[in-house]
């Protein structure tokens, strides 16, 4: 008998984002080690069985969309490719920029690239199934289950299972807070028309992932110098992002600009044990009133804006009941149209994915030497800056569908980011204006 899964609120929302991005989440981990393919296959099958949404196809039913669980063969999920080391970057990018349609029978693709005794593990998955937060958890669980299976023959079944509903964000709130949070119909994110200065979209545009690695020395300084200003790493990156944007796009210095920063709604959940892998992400719209006299003033604006959100105990929970109501009271096709009118997808955004912990991502005792994770490929003019760190090395990445000129623009943007980070951490010789 055909097995169907409920399409949760965020599944539907990410489906609605099809006009803004390709909904793929990417991870790349490089190992100085040959991965045991059979063991990896075993772990993946077990995980797919634990989270059937990965081998399901989405049906855009006009009344009520749903997932249909499909039979699959692991060889359709996992590919092993022998390559030359010099082709690695090209091959990896080609794999990572692929698009998995929601109607496809599988929602995750895995590839192991093998070259000269080294392996690069790449995974692409549909954001409708899970967000960066759970993808990070998935990767750690994958590695620990792989290790347990390889070393002690323990069946790799240790993946969280349970509800994928957005409502689990309310489960650990007090009764009154829950009631209040469930009444937060207001959408607090305002529309901002400032855009990243990409070229115009064309049919020849291709997906690409641009990366910038910030050295461990600088990353450590971002943290330590940030503390002096009362800023988190996120605030520091945000300030550099703002400043670079004004410089790159030539926004008027007196103009107010906003950048939406992804927030993990799991901060409201105390126990995630009985939850399935899913999406629990919202946006925090950081807004600065003007550029500021220098980047340090921009930083203060960014801190102030972020703190306003952090002081709110319902951070990120605004608008969820409205979305839920929208989907509940109308057929899906109608609710999509209504939500599209009311929901403004941020044009400029940042996703602070955080640390990729090498000890937890080690395979058979071999820690990854490099790696990063990034959000979906955005369609112009939308842009998302993803930030991950590994071994204190910060990787900034942008997945864009564009042309060579856009690549150049992103590259210039990254240079500006590094320059502004240098100023913030006092490596450029520029000092704070008094």
């Amino acid at each position: 008998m055909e097995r169907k899964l409920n399409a949760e609120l965020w599944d539907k929302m990410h489906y609605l984002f099809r006009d803004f991005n390709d909904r793929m989440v990417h991870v790349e981990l490089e190992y100085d080690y040959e991965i045991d393919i059979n063991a990896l296959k075993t772990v993946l099958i077990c995980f797919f069985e634990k989270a059937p949404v990965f081998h399901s196809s989405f049906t855009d039913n006009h009344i009520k969309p749903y997932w249909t669980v499909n039979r699959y063969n692991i060889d359709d999920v996992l590919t092993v490719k022998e390559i030359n080391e010099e082709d690695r970057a090209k091959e990896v990018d080609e794999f990572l920029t692929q698009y998995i349609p929601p109607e496809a029978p599988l929602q995750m693709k895995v590839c192991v690239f093998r070259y000269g005794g080294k392996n690069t593990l790449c995974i692409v998955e549909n954001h409708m199934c899970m967000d960066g937060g759970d993808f990070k958890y998935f990767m750690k669980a994958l590695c620990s289950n792989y290790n347990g299976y390889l070393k002690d023959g323990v069946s790799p079944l240790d993946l969280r299972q349970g509800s994928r509903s957005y409502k689990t964000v309310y489960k650990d709130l007090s009764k009154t807070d829950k009631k209040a949070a469930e009444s937060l119909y207001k959408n607090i994110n305002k529309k901002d028309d400032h855009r990243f200065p990409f070229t115009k979209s064309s049919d020849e545009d291709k997906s690409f992932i641009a990366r910038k690695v910030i050295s461990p020395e600088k990353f450590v300084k971002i943290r330590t110098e940030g503390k002096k200003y009362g800023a988190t790493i996120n605030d520091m990156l945000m300030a550099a992002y703002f400043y670079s944007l004004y410089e790159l796009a030539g926004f008027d210095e007196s103009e107010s600009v906003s950048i939406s920063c992804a927030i993990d709604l799991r901060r409201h959940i105390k126990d995630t044990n009985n939850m399935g892998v899913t999406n629990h992400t919202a946006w925090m719209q950081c807004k600065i009133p003007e550029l500021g006299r220098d980047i340090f003033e921009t930083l203060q604006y960014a801190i102030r804006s972020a703190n306003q959100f952090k002081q709110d105990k319902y951070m990120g929970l605004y608008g969820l009941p409205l979305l839920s109501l929208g989907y509940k009271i109308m057929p899906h096709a109608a609710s999509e149209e209504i939500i599209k009118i009311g929901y403004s997808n941020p044009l400029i955004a940042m996703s602070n994915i955080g640390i990729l912990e090498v000890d937890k991502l080690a395979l058979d005792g071999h820690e990854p030497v490099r790696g990063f994770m990034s959000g979906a490929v955005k369609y112009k003019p939308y842009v998302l800056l993803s930030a991950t760190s590994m071994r204190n090395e910060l990787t900034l990445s942008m997945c864009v569908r564009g042309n060579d000129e856009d690549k150049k623009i992103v590259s210039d943007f990254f240079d500006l980011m590094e320059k502004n980070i240098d100023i913030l951490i006092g490596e450029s010789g520029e000092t704070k204006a008094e």
Partner: protein
Amino acid sequence: MKRIMEYIDSAFEGVPESEVLYKYKQKLVAELTERANELTHSGLDDENVIYDLIVSEHPDLKGEYKELLNEIKAKKRKKTTFILRIIGSVIYAMVTVLIYLGISFVTGAWGRTWVFLVSAVLVYVSYIIFLIVGMLTKRRSMFHPLSRILLAVNVNIYTLIVFLVLFVVFGIKGAWLTFVFGVLAMMTVDGIYAEKAAERFAIFFHIGYIMPAAAMIYIILSSLHIVPWHPGWIMIPASLVIIFAVIMVRIAIHNKHTELEETEDDSEWNEN
């Protein structure tokens, strides 16, 4: 396959054999074997993992069996209840008619005894409405407004019965007050339902009902000469004090709840 059979057998050790259990075990064997085949088809060739995965999907076979037994019982109970309701309804109708005829023939007050017959029919209608309300309340909150309307209808049914008894049977002229009391009862019942069903905006109903309820109480008490019409009307504006008190209590309850512990601002980077 052998291990799966053993797992099934060991799970039901000590459970008395029965036809239901036999059929259930057969169904389980077929299901779990099919599952094992499905996993093999997916590319899983480690038998231990297949076994562990299947067991992890059915960690409590005894519990599943108990659930099945409960389902069977529930189905039987539902069927019995349905039959009992039909028999009960027929008996109720017959007894009602018999009592009506008995009272009417004995007293000869045909002009008043019809109230009994009408009331009995209304009580039956009210019973049906209660069953529907119970069913709707268990469903999603979008059905609650319908439940509340039906409850209001029910309150009106009883108001009508009381009015008929007081006016037709006892000839009390002030029986019209029953309808004023009925409005009061309707608001009270609705308020209680909103609270019990944890309606999201229950507080607004409570607040909204207080002043009209005060007006109804004022009319009843003044009509019965328990309080004078003047200055008894003060009850209505005085209800504002109760409204204020309700709001204050609700705010106090809201503020009393502890705040949720929030994670560190920089949690994503803390371990670096």
